[in-house]
């Protein structure tokens, strides 16, 4: 008898880093595992969590939040930065959205000029050009090498992120702003982690990417290749195409 496969997701700071519906990503990962009879356990890790929980996880997820919440989180996560870096460098898969993505970098310069140190895990930095510059808000479409289909999401950020040479962007902006509104890059890929500004949330409307992350987690955990059973993604595609059409992007 084949033993049922399973993955454990560590959800970092769900009650602080969850301002923009990013919880939908967790719901989506869990459902798409369950529909394929893959067991999926979600561990919610809040301020003061035990490091061993992070080590045991097969996938790490962290979402975005408001400035105040983000400060509380940084204070806790700084104590664990070294371990997190070790895990990421060793290939622990993960998805880091918006505020979490910014936090992975070297620093974040606030609108008033104050600089907040980042975790220094990924070679990138973020600067908010000031109170009078516009936030990047709206639907966004990107093309990534990870999926055949175009990815659709919603961005809402004041900070502009610039990538160092050692990291690759997650995708190329087709419509919207992306990392900084200038160089057409969106997000990062570094080892097995993905950083992105795409809310929406990103995963439900982009099932190819969700499945990529599930497969990656299984392969890292079991050390063998996996092929996921296809699902009916009719509604997912309708929701994605609805926005792609509005953005006048070919799908």
């Amino acid at each position, binding site marked *: 008898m084949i033993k049922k496969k399973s993955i454990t997701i560590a959800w970092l700071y769900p*009650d*602080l880093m*969850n*301002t*923009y*519906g*990013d*919880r*939908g990503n967790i*719901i*989506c990962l869990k*459902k798409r595992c369950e529909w394929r009879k893959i067991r999926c356990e979600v561990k919610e890790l*809040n*301020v003061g969590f035990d490091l061993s929980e992070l080590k045991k996880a097969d996938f790490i997820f962290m979402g975005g939040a*408001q*400035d*105040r*919440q983000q*400060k*509380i989180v940084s*204070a806790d996560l700084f104590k664990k930065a070294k371990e997190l870096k070790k895990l990421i460098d060793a290939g622990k898969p993960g998805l880091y959205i918006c505020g979490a993505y910014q936090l992975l970098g070297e620093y974040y310069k606030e609108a008033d000029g104050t600089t907040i140190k980042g975790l220094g895990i990924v070679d990138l930095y973020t600067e908010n050009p000031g109170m009078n510059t516009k936030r990047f*808000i*709206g*639907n966004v479409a990107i093309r990534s090498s990870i999926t055949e289909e175009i990815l659709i999401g*919603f961005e*809402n950020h004041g900070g502009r992120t610039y990538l160092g040479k050692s990291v690759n962007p997650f995708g190329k902006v087709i419509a919207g702003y992306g990392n900084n509104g200038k160089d057409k890059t969106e997000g990062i890929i570094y080892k097995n982690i993905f950083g992105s500004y795409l*809310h*929406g*949330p990103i995963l*439900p*409307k982009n099932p190819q990417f969700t499945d990529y992350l599930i497969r990656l987690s299984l392969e890292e955990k079991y050390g063998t290749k996996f092929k996921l059973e296809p699902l009916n993604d009719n*509604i*997912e595609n*309708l*929701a994605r195409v*609805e926005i792609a059409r509005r953005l006048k992007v070919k799908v």
Partner: protein
Amino acid sequence: MNKLPIVIGKSITFICRSLNLGQGSTWPGHIALLLNPNFIKDTLKKTETKIILVAGTNGKTTTGKLIKSILQESGKRVFLNQSGANLLNGIASAIISASELSGRLKRGYAIFEVDENTLPLILNQITPDYLIALNLFRDQLDRYGEIDKIARTWKKSFDNLTSSSTLVLNADDPLISFLSESTSAKVVFFGLNNDQFVTNDEQNAADSIYCLYCGSKLSYRKIFFSHLGDWSCTNCGHKRPVLNISESGKSFLSGTYNVYNVLASTLLSQVIGIKKTDVEKSIAAFKPAFGRQEIIRKGDKEVQIFLSKNPTSFNESLKTIQQLGGKNLLIVLNDRIPDGKDISWIWDTNIEFLSKGIKNISVSGDRAHEMALRMKYAGLENFLVEPNLEKAIEKTLISATGSLYILPTYSAMLEARKILTGRKIL
């Protein structure tokens, strides 16, 4: 110098109404403010009219209407800006409409529901006699920004108020009670105590459960919904302020959120000095504002609309419909400017638990497919997806036995109401 804007404004209202272009609830004020940017300040400064402002993410319209009916019951002359017309132009329009051609304003009380971003602007123009702050929830992050930012700007404005103003605040919302910390205004608090309102459901959409003073997680003796409850910080000792009121007269409005609206109106009436019998009588007879639990008859069926524009109002509406034993539900999701373009909040709703027992479910609106996606991932299977609202209403009504409950976002609510009544409202 305000006669001219008033005359012009009144003419515009007349033209709008005659040509059936709407009620003229924003244009006259818009023009008046172009002619005189200080129009609101100048007109209200000269009058004896007492000014009541109602602010907060959810419940402004219902609370404004409640106060209006209480004050009218006790014989006061009152005016209120039109529901939803709560930016500066809407407030100016209400003043124009209530003024006489001579420019005089012969009303005892002006009640203005005020948009979250507009509150600091209006407080620069006028000193309110009373200001109600109901709550702060995440809402339209693309338009308003994050709620902490709103709270910070509000606090700055509140700090400039003097003892000639009275703040009526929700003690159960940590963010709102924080606003009272350093103001010179008089402050009174409303909140809940009764255990019948306590919820044990998971609160995914809770926004402010960390202490504003020290950043520790707040403890709650009781949670009523979202981040509203009997809170305290075990680290720095800040806690819910002492309540001036926690019980009120009986109302037909459903939902815990409406209990707060009734409490706020009752406390304000007490501060003003309205007779208790007048307050209770108007609360008992109160009819909901349009789109807020309003009942519309369609043929032999009843349709009730619950405006649901953010995760908290969506969850609380759905909970109320469940308590009413609802069987037919239509969710309408639009992403136009008045709704907020970012609809990711639907993933923070608790539709998984709250739709149990509801058999006949449809989704509609500009983002019908996104709502359908949310339903699919909530584990729901049999529901109708019909982006065209007129068809969606028709189809859902045909298969409905009993009342149909509609949960629309703001622009969807106006549209649904227009379809059901054939009348234009704004």
